[in-house]
């Protein structure tokens, strides 16, 4: 289980995350959604031990998070620089040597599923294929927690579809917990169990997708817009 208690993260003068308290159960697919600058990436980095909270506590399985959480949490980087001189297969071998929970067979199978040529050097791959490779090495870890930060940004619909299918096929529920930030809510909604809505660094809602649809008779995008317009009105 992931538990944030009164977490605030300040960068110089601005607060990226304000007084957030949040519990996320294991074995679920959870979407973190909200407009640009609402604090989604900061929240993920706090979970992954890449940032320390200015105030409050972040715990995973009752242990306060620090960099060592990388042992049981796989984080998908959106960094541009990604082992350009290795081939896909060499990258898989490298990950295999670095992570005890890496499943090489799964990686090779997933690379095939994603139509990747494992002999190709990463620097010659298209943007879409580079994204596929990152997904392959991240999801091939049998880590209890998998965190994907904007896995679809700047990708065409075919690549987005391939990545969603890869997630459905290769994530193990309920042994794994998947946390994902995205703006492509409509496309991702069918694979989400829960959504957390952020606005200006605050959590304004946390619901199951079934409840959103059952109670409000609308999908997550419309629900989020409604929440935002209510919040905007109460401010003005």
């Amino acid at each position, binding site marked *: 289980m992931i538990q944030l208690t009164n977490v605030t993260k300040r960068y110089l003068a601005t607060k990226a995350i304000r007084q957030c308290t949040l519990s996320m159960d294991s074995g679920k*697919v959870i979407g973190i959604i909200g407009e640009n600058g609402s604090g989604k990436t900061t929240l993920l980095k706090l979970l992954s031990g890449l940032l320390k909270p200015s105030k409050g506590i972040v715990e995973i399985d009752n242990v306060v998070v620090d960099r060592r959480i990388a042992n049981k949490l796989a984080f998908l980087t959106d960094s541009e620089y990604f082992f350009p001189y290795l081939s896909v297969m060499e990258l898989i071998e490298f990950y295999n040597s670095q992570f005890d929970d890496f499943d090489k067979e799964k990686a090779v199978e997933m690379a095939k599923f994603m139509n990747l040529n494992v002999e190709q050097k990463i620097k010659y791959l298209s943007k879409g294929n580079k994204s596929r490779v990152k997904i392959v090495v991240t999801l091939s870890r049998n880590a209890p927690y998998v965190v994907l930060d904007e896995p679809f940004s700047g990708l065409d619909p075919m690549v987005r579809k391939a990545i969603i299918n890869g997630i459905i096929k290769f994530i193990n*529920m309920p042994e794994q917990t998947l946390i994902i930030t995205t703006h492509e809510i409509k496309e991702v909604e*069918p694979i989400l169990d829960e959504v957390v809505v952020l606005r200006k660094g605050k959590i304004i809602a946390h619901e199951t997708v079934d409840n959103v649809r059952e109670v409000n008779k609308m999908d997550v995008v419309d629900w989020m817009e409604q929440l935002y317009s209510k919040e905007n009105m109460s401010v003005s």
Partner: protein
Amino acid sequence: MGLEFDANKPIYLQLIHRISSEIVRGDKREGEKLPSVREYAVEVGVNTNTISRVYRELELLQIVTTKRGQGTFVTEDVNRLTRLREEMKQEQIKQFIMDMQEMGFSINEMLEGIMNNGSEGQ
């Protein structure tokens, strides 16, 4: 792959309806094996938790049975399937009547319309 879902209803309910329709139509026969949770998840484009819930709810409704280590099967209880057919008919009719009454049509007008349409369709 992946299905389009209605925005105003939980996805698991839409999938329960989909499988029930396939059974009533005869596309899935009594005793037939359903795809594994993961296969069906990939086929319709939802996560495996949702499919597990769909199979669990269908089992509670006694429309499918799960055999340990073998998978999930459409029930062989023909009476249950006959009842399912009737339930789905009633559900559709209730919805139809509600929608028509909302627009101000009487039951007689509906009946007349159905009869006219039915004879055209044959």
